[in-house]
């Protein structure tokens, strides 16, 4: 039997054992805590059709905000969507800023969508004109059924 050069005394062994057990305990507790706080079931987002307006109420030219309401869990979310009639097409823009998710509003006088949070600006087409947004405003799918306009919203 070959002995190590400095044999460990009882006290040093006990000290290492206690420190090791503390580290082990913290590690196990961290795993338990991480599992505990992670939600087990995360629901898929689904697209729902939300009625917007009568076909006859569409904007002739330009941007108009329409209030829509849709359920999410037990609450009802109310927000605006923007219908834009450009020279060539009609499309719907989501009001959610692509920077960090605040809601933009359309300012007629400046002909821009302005985000109140960090100064993001978009033009009528939803393209970024100024500020931090990394992408243009999201276009939401439009449907027409029995003379009504519907928009597809991810909930």
């Amino acid at each position, binding site marked *: 039997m070959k002995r190590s050069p400095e044999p460990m005394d009882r*006290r040093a062994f*006990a*000290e290492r054992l206690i420190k090791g057990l503390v580290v082990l305990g913290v590690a196990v507790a961290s795993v*338990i*805590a991480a*599992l*505990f*706080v992670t939600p*087990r*079931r995360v629901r898929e987002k689904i697209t729902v059709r939300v009625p917007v307006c009568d076909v006859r109420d569409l904007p002739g030219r330009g941007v108009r905000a329409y209030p829509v309401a849709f359920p999410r869990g037990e609450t009802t979310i109310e927000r605006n969507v923007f219908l834009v009639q450009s020279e060539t097409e009609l499309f719907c823009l989501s009001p959610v800023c692509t920077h960090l998710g605040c809601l933009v509003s359309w300012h007629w006088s400046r002909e821009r969508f302005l985000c109140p949070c960090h100064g993001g600006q978009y033009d009528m087409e939803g393209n970024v004109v100024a500020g931090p947004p990394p992408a243009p405003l999201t276009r939401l799918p439009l449907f027409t059924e029995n003379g009504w306009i519907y928009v597809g919203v991810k909930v």
Partner: protein
Amino acid sequence: MGWLFDRSDRFFGLKKPHRRVFHRPLPEGVNYFFCLGGIAFTLFLLLFATGFMLAIYYVPSEADAYRSIVHLHREVRLGTFVRSLHKWSAHLFIVAIVLHSVRVFVYKAYRHPRELNWIVGVLTLVVALASGFTGYLLPWDQKAYWATQVGTAMAGEVPGVGSALMLMLRGGVDVSGATLTRFYAVHVVGLPLIMCLLLWIHFHLVKQQGVKGGL
């Protein structure tokens, strides 16, 4: 990590006063019954950690409290485990404190100069019992409701101030949502804070006065 700790400890100076934790001299006649206080403290740490975790999912409202407990059991990973750990630690915490008190009593460690630490220890037991009483209501089931109904009614029997005391405890004439929220606040913030303060005094005095040896 150790390097980082040593670097910052040049400013904090935490290491030096605690270096002797592993080298503290112990008197003759110490045995495993002297571990009961440490066991109680370990249980307190467990209660603190699991209690914090439970507070993440618990909703202290009349309508949602019980539902949030059911949700914890059915939907949360290890939810039943963490809640059971909290419950059993709470039971054993009281047991450990009582056994620790018996040990201190038998070894005459409550006598001068340690009389103040005995008093602090008794206050610790009182705070632990109060935590048990307030925590018992939080599941908001039949057992919780009626236990609190009876417990607060007992406070109502105190001569003179009884009815005022009962109103203070219940936050109204009956045990209601008002009782639930105040018990929650006391259980989750108030009592743990007081407990931490008491334990700090308790351990500081043990450090100052040393452990009383055998009989």
